[in-house]
């Protein structure tokens, strides 16, 4: 936080300028550090992390413009003021393009430097306030989402657990008629839980914020982790799960959690929309500029007329409420959205009664324009 003692850094090869700035600004109550050229200036900047920097445009060695550029990258919230020997419009404009807040032409009076720095420090205060507000709003929003999710899931979870205790006969014996009804309750409630989870994922998905957490991710790890989570479900349905990947697969830039969500939805569907004794094969390919993840199954397949719309929210091939297999209707729209946010693309091919194959391509290197 900027207090009365804001930190100022003055970078100028002219000793008189450094001395007079120091005198005036220290009198104004600021803490001042000076540097005699660009290189030293950048070193000082990294050490003291000032609130405001005064940079002379014309210096030997590293130019003022270069210093501005490098500072902008290191800390976009620092206020930069340029000192110009010639107050030409073009140099001032150039400086503004590099993030300068204002400029002051030499020679300047003590009052002039005092005033311009005071305005700059006020600007700094506002920038920091805005950053803090944004961060706390983000935190509140994320806590809100987790709170809502929790508040919705908790009563459902409690109900499902009681029902499953009844199902297991642990609260006394029940008639087979009663058990049938309880079974239906459990199925419908677990569907609802699934829906809440996926809906919240989709509704709160923020590609920009996700992109901030991008790191190098190995799709082999992602596939293995997701398949471990789904092993029980596959076993229950007598569906086999297989992963085929090269020994070395280049990593891609992404959010591990979101990539897990993508794989979880695709592999989960492949298991669900399958038959007893069926298989699900996940194959990873190293393809020049991209990594390809192929999720194939020999399950029920998707009729051709539905293929163009399966990525739509809540779109269901079998829309009946008592359909034998029923998902939330959101899984594929989540997959499509998240794949796009990774700069990737997804294709599907299918034949009714024979199976379905999803192919997801991820670029190895992120081109900012490719992310949509």
């Amino acid at each position, binding site marked *: 936080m900027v207090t009365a003692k804001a930190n100022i850094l003055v970078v100028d090869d002219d000793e008189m300028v450094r001395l007079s700035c120091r005198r005036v600004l220290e009198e104004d109550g600021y803490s001042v550090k000076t540097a005699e050229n660009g290189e030293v200036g950048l070193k000082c900047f990294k050490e003291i992390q000032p609130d405001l920097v005064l940079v002379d445009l014309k210096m030997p060695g590293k130019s003022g413009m270069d210093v501005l550029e490098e500072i902008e990258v290191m800390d976009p919230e620092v206020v930069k003021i340029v000192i110009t020997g010639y107050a030409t419009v073009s140099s001032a404009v150039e400086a503004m393009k590099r993030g300068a807040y204002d400029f002051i032409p030499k020679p300047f009076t003590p009052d002039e430097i005092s005033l311009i720095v005071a305005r700059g420090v006020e600007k700094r205060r506002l920038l920091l306030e805005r950053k803090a507000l944004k961060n706390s709003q983000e935190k509140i929003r994320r806590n809100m989402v*987790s709170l809502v999710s929790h508040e919705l*899931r908790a009563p459902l979870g409690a109900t499902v*657990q009681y029902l499953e205790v009844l199902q297991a006969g*642990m609260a006394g014996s029940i008639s087979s008629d009663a058990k049938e009804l309880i079974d239906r309750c459990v199925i419908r409630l*677990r569907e609802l839980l699934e829906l809440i989870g996926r809906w919240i994922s989709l509704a709160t998905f923020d590609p920009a914020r996700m992109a901030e957490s991008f790191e190098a991710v190995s799709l082999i790890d992602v596939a293995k982790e997701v398949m471990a989570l789904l092993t029980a479900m596959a076993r229950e349905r007598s569906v086999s799960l297989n992963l085929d990947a090269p020994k070395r697969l280049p990593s891609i830039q992404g959010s591990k959690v979101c990539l897990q969500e993508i794989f979880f939805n695709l592999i989960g569907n492949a298991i669900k929309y399958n038959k007893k004794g069926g298989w699900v094969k996940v194959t990873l390919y190293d393809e020049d500029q991209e990594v390809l993840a192929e999720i194939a199954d020999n399950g029920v397949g998707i009729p051709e007329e539905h293929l163009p719309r399966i990525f739509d929210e809540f779109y269901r091939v079998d829309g009946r409420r008592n359909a034998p297999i029923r998902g939330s209707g959101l899984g594929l729209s989540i997959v499509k959205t998240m794949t796009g946010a990774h700069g990737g693309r997804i294709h599907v091919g299918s034949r009714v009664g024979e199976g379905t194959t999803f192919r997801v391509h991820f670029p190895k290197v992120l081109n900012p324009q490719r992310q949509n």
Partner: protein
Amino acid sequence: MQLTTTGVTMSGMAKKILVIDDDPDFVKSTTIVLKSAGYEVLEAYSGKEGLEKSDTDNPDLYIIDLMMETYSEGANVVDALNRKEKTKNKPKIMITSVDLKGPWDSYQQNDWLACDFLVQKPVRPGDLLRYVEKALTKHQ
């Protein structure tokens, strides 16, 4: 559905499980499941109560909910238990209503590594008993 009988130790004494959760329905359904497998069950409805009962009753295993008085109360409880000689090597299972499969970033994964298993609610009776058995065996 198969029930496990590891509730009873070699000497015939039932293993004691402390369930810590501010949701009384979860505590009740979990207690029914655990008792049916022969375990002795203790209940606590807050992190504070849980730590007190841990001191007085020396449970053999802990089942702890993540979100109680505070967002990460469960993690605080696990932390406190792990800092005491008496309880740092006891098996602990964290359970939560939080959707673990979603893009969840409010909690660091490390919060959970300090316990043996992290389980999502609602948990099926058979699955819960399997986790308990595994955790007890791990720490023998």
